[in-house]
């Protein structure tokens, strides 16, 4: 529960002077995400750099050290009736806020509540020159300077060591209820999107195994009135289902087959591939378990207006992210270089070429 930023800065400077590389590790629960870590790089651990720096429930703003666990954050917020609106996946007790932001991971409510990136207000970051920098802030609106804070989302630690994160938190909804009904995959895309286009308190929409699940949250009166109006059975206790989807503990996610994530247009027809599917985010996120060819999947994802990535399993030595066009490769290389000119942080973790 202490501030280790000075030691972290020194470790970065030592690595820089010695020409070493560093793998940044928080709780170590997301080692399976991204490409395999460089075995020749040293470890920069943030597990001890933890603790809540500042929390004002009235401001809806929380500032924490990057190594703080999601469990600790959520327990603190719960005392004030508040939540992390983006429902971060926990891949174990050690999952940290820093890792969650670096991997840009959000739960079932993401299309409505926003992603982890959407809630970020500011970060402190040690760049590859060993400079400890502060970007953004603790206020809702801040357009001074480039949005370096949100740039970190999905960068997988390749731009620097995040030490402190400020983010927006929200009140826990007064009531939550889940509706479930049978539906074939062919019908569900249109159904989920139609429901999402209604001005009702929908906060999650998921399909698996010929069943569609819609979650309603908000004022009790609104949730109950909507449940009455819409079709579907009220689930006796829907929360565990959403928790399993959020943490990838649902049966769909178990087993050894590679897990692919399609992030595509919510209304796009489902890609035709042999294997199993779980559709989340009202169609914007589709999980696929199967052994289809990468090139074929990339073509299908592109046709569906989005991208595909290898989330878990499979070949972690090859590229796991969707192929980037040359102009974007160039920009990302130069952005990386602007933060980490010696290529110290998480080499090859995001792309083989970064």
């Amino acid at each position, binding site marked *: 529960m202490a501030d280790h930023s000075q030691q972290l800065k020194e470790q970065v400077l030592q690595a820089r002077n010695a020409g070493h590389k560093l793998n940044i590790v928080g709780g170590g629960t997301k080692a399976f995400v991204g490409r395999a870590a460089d075995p020749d790089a040293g470890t920069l651990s943030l597990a001890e750099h933890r603790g809540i720096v500042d929390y*004002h*429930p*009235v*401001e809806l703003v929380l500032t924490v050290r990057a190594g703080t666990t999601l469990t600790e954050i959520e327990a603190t917020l719960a005392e004030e009736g508040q939540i992390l609106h983006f429902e971060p996946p926990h891949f174990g007790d050690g999952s940290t806020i820093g890792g969650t932001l670096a991997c*840009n991971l*959000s739960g079932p409510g*993401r299309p409505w509540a*926003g992603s982890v990136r*959407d809630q970020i207000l500011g970060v402190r970051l040690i760049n590859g020159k060993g*400079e400890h*920098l*502060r970007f953004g*802030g*603790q*206020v*809702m*609106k801040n*357009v*001074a*300077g*480039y*949005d*370096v804070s*949100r*740039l*970190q989302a*999905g960068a997988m630690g390749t731009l620097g060591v995040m030490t402190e994160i400020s983010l927006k938190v*929200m*009140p*826990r909804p007064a009531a939550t209820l889940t509706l479930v009904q049978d539906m074939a995959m062919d019908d569900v895309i249109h159904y989920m*999107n139609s429901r*999402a*286009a*209604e*001005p*009702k*308190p929908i906060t999650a929409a998921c399909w698996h195994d010929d069943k569609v699940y819609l979650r309603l949250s908000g*004022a009790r*009166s*609104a949730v109950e*009135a909507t449940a009455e109006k819409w079709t579907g059975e009220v689930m006796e206790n829907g929360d565990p289902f959403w928790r399993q989807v959020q943490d990838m503990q649902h049966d769909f996610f178990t087993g050894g087959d590679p897990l692919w994530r*399609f*992030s*595509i*247009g*919510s*209304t*796009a027809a489902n890609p035709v591939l042999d294997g199993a599917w779980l559709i989340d985010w009202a169609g914007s*996120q589709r999980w696929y378990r199967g052994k289809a060819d990468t090139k074929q999947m990339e073509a299908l994802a592109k046709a569906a*207006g*989005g*991208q595909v990535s290898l989330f878990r399993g499979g070949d972690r030595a090859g590229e796991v*992210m*969707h192929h980037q066009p040359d102009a*974007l490769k160039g*920009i*990302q290389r130069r952005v990386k270089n*602007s*933060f980490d000119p010696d290529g110290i942080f998480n080499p090859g973790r*995001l792309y083989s070429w970064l």
Partner: protein
Amino acid sequence: MTTKPKVSKAELAEQFRAFIDPDYVITDDETMKPYECDGMSMYCEMPLLVVLPETVEQVQRVMRICNENAVPVVARGAGTGLSAGAMPNKEGVVLSLAKFNRIIHIDPLARSARLQPGVRNLAISEEAAQYGLYYGPDPSSQIACTIGGNVAENSGGVHCLKYGLTVHNILSVEMVTAEGDVVTIGSDGLDSCGMDLLALLTGSEGLLGVVTEVQVKLLPKPEVARVVMAGFDSVQKGGDAVGGIISHGIIPGGLEMMDGHAIIAADDFAQAGYPRDAKALLLCEVDGTEEEVLEHIAEAEEVFRKLGATSVRTSRSEEERALLWKGRKSAFPAVGRISPDYYCMDGTIPRREIANVLTQMEQMSEQFGLRVANVFHAGDGNLHPLILFDANVPGEFERTEAFGSSILELCVKVGGCITGEHGVGVEKVRQMAVQFNDEELQQFHDVKAAFDPAGILNPGKGVPALRFCQEYRSLEHKQHKHDHTEAAHG
């Protein structure tokens, strides 16, 4: 950053006229005059020339020519910006996107719209209304400002606390780089692989690229919206009520506050029936389903009464709601009536500091001998102090600027920032040195160079050259006792 341009005005115009309708390559002073400033008319500069391409390919060719010849490029939408971000460069080209004004496609089921950058903000919601949808961010200038400019500034509006800023409401942009390449950033999906370049571009004030297409998210129009108006006899109580409503668990669609000066000016102008003796007025809009709004309205009224409201009134009809908003929406022109000129500031502070900052601002108002009226997005802590002055009185604008600087520095000191939604542009480039240290500013310059190695895109805006920062900070130290840099970084 930029070196001296390698071509003359005549040569440049000739090159552009080879592929752009010659009528839209403007070189004469009279026709260029309207481009000399944006909404921040105190800052003016005539450009070398103005060009209005109509295809992406033409934009690419303009960029390639300018990049090869080190000619600065200032992209421009409707020119409604309030920080001189679109002020021309005297050796550069103004690249107007005015001809890119088409709504390309609205997809009602996917709740998204593809737009050319010159589409007006309000036009999106007007077109989407037939599907029961609308576009969330609604800056005050929404009748005129364009979506391209909104992306450049990360524009907000009155509904940000609940519905977010531009960055939360876009899916993808197509952009022409400084070197003339076309890239698409983002996708139809919600998250893309890798570092979040879409967030980096949003709010980058035309320094990283020229946006040529934007895909936005659309939201279902709430079934109902109602406004609770509450008057308070002190700014302290008004400020506390802002926190009170939020900590009660209600996230209002809009939560606006006016101080005593603004209440009177706005009520004189709009006859909205505001409590004229109040020192602070809150407008709290609650939107959602019928049931939800009824439930939240009752709670909001109770919270305000408990926190000492001297008057509480809730709209009973759409007409009444519109009337209550009319005062707020016309507050700027209303203040314009009570003063020859006004200067609109844009800082953000933690909500708990509202009363403190307003009180200190009153004291500064006396020190500087200038009146100040406050109209602001209280839910976000985004202040818009309007400093009243007369540009015809020698020295008064300079005094106004000094007052404005002091307000922004106070914002940083209490944990806020120098701009919530208007951008840095030219206007606040000096104050960047108060919010950021040299290493941070250098990091911004390095990010800029990653996109624009030759430094041709909107040079001199957004991020100050480091040598000016030392001067500004040392000047400030002499003028004021407190150390702003420590306040920002301590």
